[in-house]
């Protein structure tokens, strides 16, 4: 691989320490990693390993206690909350385990919501939202509310929403966790397709080894540290 690797999200010696009353809980212990353009990265680890905290860092949803997070080479600690929201909405798309759709809004309204926050015009929003839903096989579900959709359909709406602003990275937190294996597989196929066809960078958090099989790069996290990086699979280099 000789192409120039552009880091979209970079973590530099990131620590996250939660203050639970008088007890300190260290969720991340000096994690450093890069998400490069075009990556398909899987983050694996048992519950309590700091996986969710790491995802929050990569997704720029939270600030580290120590260390730095760069979103497209900008130190997020230098940004205001609003600037970060704006940037996050533009660069990152989220897919959650529980779908996290707005229950009051229809499929198309859910998909167009991130575009409203980016100030996209109504005409463009509708067109793009509809195209996305159609491409995900939801052409007949456009005006349905989440409650009227199956789990797989809901997750596809969520994927459409994640892609609404044409982000560079899609971060999926256990995207198949609430789905049966058949549907889960289909969802992963969808993500893979967007990765391959549109070159979207994918970051998937999972504990399912089958899902990990879709990725080209695997971070194993345990007790707040990355213990394995499968890109260097043959060597099993231990982090520190």
């Amino acid at each position, binding site marked *: 691989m000789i192409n120039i690797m552009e880091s979209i999200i970079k973590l530099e010696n990131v620590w996250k320490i939660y203050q639970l009353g008088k007890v300190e809980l260290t969720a991340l212990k000096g994690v450093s990693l890069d998400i490069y353009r075009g990556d398909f990265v899987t983050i694996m680890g048992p519950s309590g390993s700091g996986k*969710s905290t790491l995802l*929050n860092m990569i*997704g720029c*949803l*939270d600030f580290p206690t120590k260390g730095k997070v760069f979103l497209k080479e900008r130190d997020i600690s230098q940004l205001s*909350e*609003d600037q970060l*929201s*704006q940037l*996050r*909405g*533009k660069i990152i*798309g*989220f897919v*959650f385990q529980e779908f*996290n759709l*707005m*229950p*009051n*809004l229809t499929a198309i309204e859910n998909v167009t*919501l*991130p575009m*409203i*926050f*980016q*100030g996209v*015009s*109504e005409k463009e929003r509708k067109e793009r939202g509809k195209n996305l839903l159609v491409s995900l096989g939801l052409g007949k579900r456009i005006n349905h509310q989440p409650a009227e959709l199956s789990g797989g359909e809901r997750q596809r709406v969520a994927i459409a*929403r994640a892609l609404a*602003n044409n982000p560079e990275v899609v971060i999926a937190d256990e995207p198949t966790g609430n789905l049966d294996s058949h549907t889960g597989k289909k969802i992963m196929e969808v993500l893979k397709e967007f990765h391959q066809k549109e070159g979207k960078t994918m970051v998937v958090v999972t504990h399912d080894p089958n899902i990990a099989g879709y990725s080209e790069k695997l971070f194993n996290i345990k007790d707040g540290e990355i213990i394995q990086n499968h890109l260097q699979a043959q060597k099993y280099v231990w982090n520190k």
Partner: protein
Amino acid sequence: MEQIKEYFKIALRNLRTRSLRSWLTILGIVIGVFLIISLLSLSEGIKQTITQQLRALGGEVIFVMPGEISDPVAMFMSGAQLEREDIEGIERVRGVDVVLTMSYQSLLVRHEDEGKTIFTSGLSWEKGTEIMEKFQGWSLKEGGWPVPGKREVVIGSQVENNVFEKKVEVGDEIIIKGKRFEVVGILNSLGSKQDDTSIYLDLPLYQDLTGEKRGTAQMAMVKIKEGIPLDKTAEEIKKSLEKTRKRRVGFDAADFSVITSEKMEDIAGDILAVIQFAIIGFASIAIIVGGIGIMNTMFTSVRERTREIGIMKAIGAKNRAVLIIFLFEAGIIGLIGGIGGTALGFILAKVIENCGQAHYFSATVSPGLIVFGLSFSFLVGCLSGLIPATKAAKLKPVEALRRYE
């Protein structure tokens, strides 16, 4: 602007999905605004009626009434009388042209087997027709003036059609407190409901009916000669009354009021201002309670939708967007409450106006009052929503998302 419109739509959508709670909260505001609109429209109506009535009286009249004007209840309820010598004293004051004495009371009046309690005024026709006709603009729609001393009455314009089921016509017989009277004239409208629903008869006959002593009166209207200053004459009348009353043992010298019609308008205005102030005060309490209701709903809503707020922020919503959406929700609750309250207040005002046979005022709902009601309630909604909305806006996306995990 485009975004604001979308936020408004989202806010509307959110309200619709929790409609029962929204409606209950709206009800709180409806009650408050309803109170404000109905009470203010009624007091505005009273004010207009009084002004109208006073204007009909003209500016050159002095009223002599029992009781202290500063104590309206005592003024109308005391039953204090102007005695014969009081009246004669007034007549002797320089500059006084005519003294018209009157008494009034609600009496049972029968027409064609139908009994109604009607405001009945006794005024002496000998002097009265002149003052009333030339000076105060009374005129007859039909018939003629009663002959003094004869059992004849004139009726207010609304007595003709609106008081009894059967139309009262000139020549009809009516029975007041068991005595027969003939209707000889019907007045044109005098511009106030009270005057238009009254019956007028000769003072001595009225006093025979009610048992009031002849030569006395409940009040007097004094017309002064041209070119004589009103205030000065009023002062002199006051002095004369003090003198005659002092002569009688056991009378408090200050149990009457001498006022010019101008001053009366001032006093009425002052009293009404106090009443309106009190109304606004009480209704504001109702509105504040409604506002607390909105705040409560909004806090609950922020709590319930913590996760939604987290999602919105994760997908790019700025703090301002969340703030605006929640403020809109609170404002819409307030506004709908305001619309409901204004409509109900308007309806109540109209109902009172229409079945107002026994009431002496009409209700006035001015466009200004409506605009006030609506903008005030929207503002109350927004203000009540401010703290919850700020709380929602400040939520950290990661915490909002974690909440239910």
